[in-house]
């Protein structure tokens, strides 16, 4: 089977959006779920969160950052090209319910998976306050989309080039200290950011949900590679998650397991830089 890339565009340096033709996946997709793709026969299976989907047009949107060999190879692909595999939707859908005021926190490419949640939370009558952050203004994605999907959007940049000068956690704390009652916080981004948000919300007794992205192979509970420690219990992020209560997550374990293949990833990247010319799509 092949899955056609029907649109591709760069959002900011190193971050790309792709719409992939996959009508069955689009029809079943819900916020919070992910897909696993494989570019070609030699490719690895990589999980990516679903950023959006269009049931009528039959496509699923993914947003990814160039990191390792596979995402760099993916970035070289163009509309009309095809992916060998595009499996999904995987994982449990987010529990989107009417609870009042929800704060959605997205960091870097983590803004992509909170976008469909913002839409879904607002659609059923919640007040949605979104906090989006990036290292710098020119790396901030989906600002307009988030504005359209939220009641209020706050921006934080590490270098102060836009919005609050500092981390998204500062804005989370400000909101929690404010007059408005916050009923839930959902934070998606790098593990270090999610851990920081969990640390900020902990004393406030506000339900805080994070989405975990451990290394996985099959995404259906078969390999057990995505083991995470949740409240002292081992869970498989692919079938038990990917979303969990932040206060129960062992982030140190998550980060350590994410670094498992760092050496191999570097070798693969180095290897792929050798021997190929500029026209080659593998880099």
């Amino acid at each position, binding site marked *: *089977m092949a899955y056609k890339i029907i649109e591709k565009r760069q959002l900011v340096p190193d971050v790309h959006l792709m719409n992939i033709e996959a009508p*069955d*996946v689009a029809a*079943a997709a819900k916020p919070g779920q992910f897909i696993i793709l*494989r570019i070609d026969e*030699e*490719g*690895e*299976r990589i999980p990516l969160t679903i950023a959006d989907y269009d049931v009528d047009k039959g496509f699923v949107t993914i947003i990814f950052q160039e990191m390792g*060999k*596979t995402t760099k190879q993916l970035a070289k692909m163009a509309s009309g090209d095809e992916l*060998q*595999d*595009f*499996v*999904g*939707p*995987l994982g449990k859908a987010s529990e989107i319910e009417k609870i009042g005021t929800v704060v959605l926190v997205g960091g870097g490419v983590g803004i992509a998976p909170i976008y469909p949640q913002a839409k879904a939370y607002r659609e059923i009558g919640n007040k949605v306050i979104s906090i989006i952050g990036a290292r710098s203004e020119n790396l901030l994605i989906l600002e307009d989309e988030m504005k359209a999907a939220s009641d209020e959007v706050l921006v934080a940049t590490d270098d102060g080039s836009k919005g609050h000068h500092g981390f998204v956690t500062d804005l989370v704390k400000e909101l929690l200290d404010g007059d408005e009652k916050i009923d839930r916080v959902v934070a998606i981004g790098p593990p270090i950011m999610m851990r920081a948000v969990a640390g900020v919300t902990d004393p406030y007794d506000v339900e805080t949900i994070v989405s975990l992205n451990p290394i996985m*192979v*099959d*995404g*259906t*509970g*078969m*390999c*057990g*590679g995505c*083991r*995470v*420690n949740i409240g002292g219990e*081992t869970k498989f992020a692919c*079938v038990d998650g990917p979303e969990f209560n932040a206060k129960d997550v062992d982030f*140190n*374990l998550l980060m*350590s*397991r994410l*670094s*498992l*293949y760092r050496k*191999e*990833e570097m*070798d*693969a990247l180095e*290897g*792929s830089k050798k021997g190929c010319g500029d026209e080659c799509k593998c880099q």
Partner: protein
Amino acid sequence: MSITQEMPEQPAEVRIHNFEEVALGYTEEQAILEAERCLECKKPKCVEGCPVNIDIPGFISSMKEGNFGEAIDVIKRTNTLPAVCGRVCPQEEQCEQLCILGKKSEPISIGRLERFCADREREAGVKDPVVAEPTGKKVAIVGTGPAGLTAASDLAKAGHSVTMFEALHEAGGVLIYGIPEFRLPKAIVKEEVEYIMKLGAELKVGYVIGRIKTLDQLEKEFDAVFLGTGAGLPKFMGIEGENLNGVYSANEFLTRVNLMKAYRFPEYDTPIKRGSNVIVVGGGNVAMDAARSALRLGADEVSIVYRRSDEELPARREEIEHAKEEGIVFRLLTNPVRILEGENMAVNGVECIKMELGEPDDSGRRRPVAVEGSEHVIDADIVIMAIGTSPNPIIFDGSKGLEVTPWGTIVVNEAGMTSLEGVCAGGDAVTGAATVISAMGAGKQAAETINDYLSK
């Protein structure tokens, strides 16, 4: 009485450096000599021992005359995966165990003969199969392991429109992700799957039932459904250190190696840790496969850690012998109690305890009891847990009324029908982890049941 023909093999010192098949198969001359040993019993016991009831004396009789084409036709009447079965069936506990020759000398090598016929046909080009007139009925097969493939082929032969759904990107289930290339070349599995496609079956890969479509939806779209989803959820021991870097489930380790071809990294993009000291916990075929794969990836020492004695090892004797020849260390009557942590949350050894065997337990095997004070540490940088699997509950998401046991296995009647009308199940999803051939037997039974159901 003549003696059984030995199977030529790659020498141990050579094969530990490659992933090519260990057993090389009979020559034509050997195949005929072995076939000639068959007494063609009037009441053949061997057939009773075969879960799919292959006409064993029938195909061996054709082989004696060198008529291998006829022999494979006889086999294929009941078994669509002969090249697979000839390699991985536990023949010594099934057909061959009941062979009358075994009483005085050695039983006839039925598995090796089956393999020869299948390989011979594949080399010569497989004949197009005969399929019944289309019935206009649609059947969904969920899972394409041995149970699903068998059910699919029997139902396609009967003229039904069959669609197979596979969660991974290749059909074959455990035959593809679990059993290593050196025991079952993937090209062979692919060809057997292609044969089923020639019967008219359609295949959708990367299609996770329970997520992309619920079982309820399938029931509406199809006239009947077969669930052959296997037992894919890996078990862990629940000991300290099990989530450290370097601890794999056998499923993950073998999937990376077999399905994703990690042994060819970086040509293939999927990485795997190649340890120096590898410990595999468990004593079944999966443990042997994981240990022998780790050795081929370049480990200095690979140990099997098993809590019972050699006698109770559940793996096939042939595979245990192969593993021993290759230098796998067997640490028997030994059980891990915790995994030790080194730098960067990586494995740095396994603390084990010696065991002794007490009275038999529910399984009939003598119960292992820990010997107090016998704790000791074994060096390790990779630990592979091969202690079994249980059915994956993902299929049940969004399905109403499917009866399952507290262990997560699907409840079926003797005909293989579940609590839902028109939905059959079989294989590991029903029995818990078992053998390829028993799953095939269940697939066959379910196909019969579905046939009856659809002709009502």
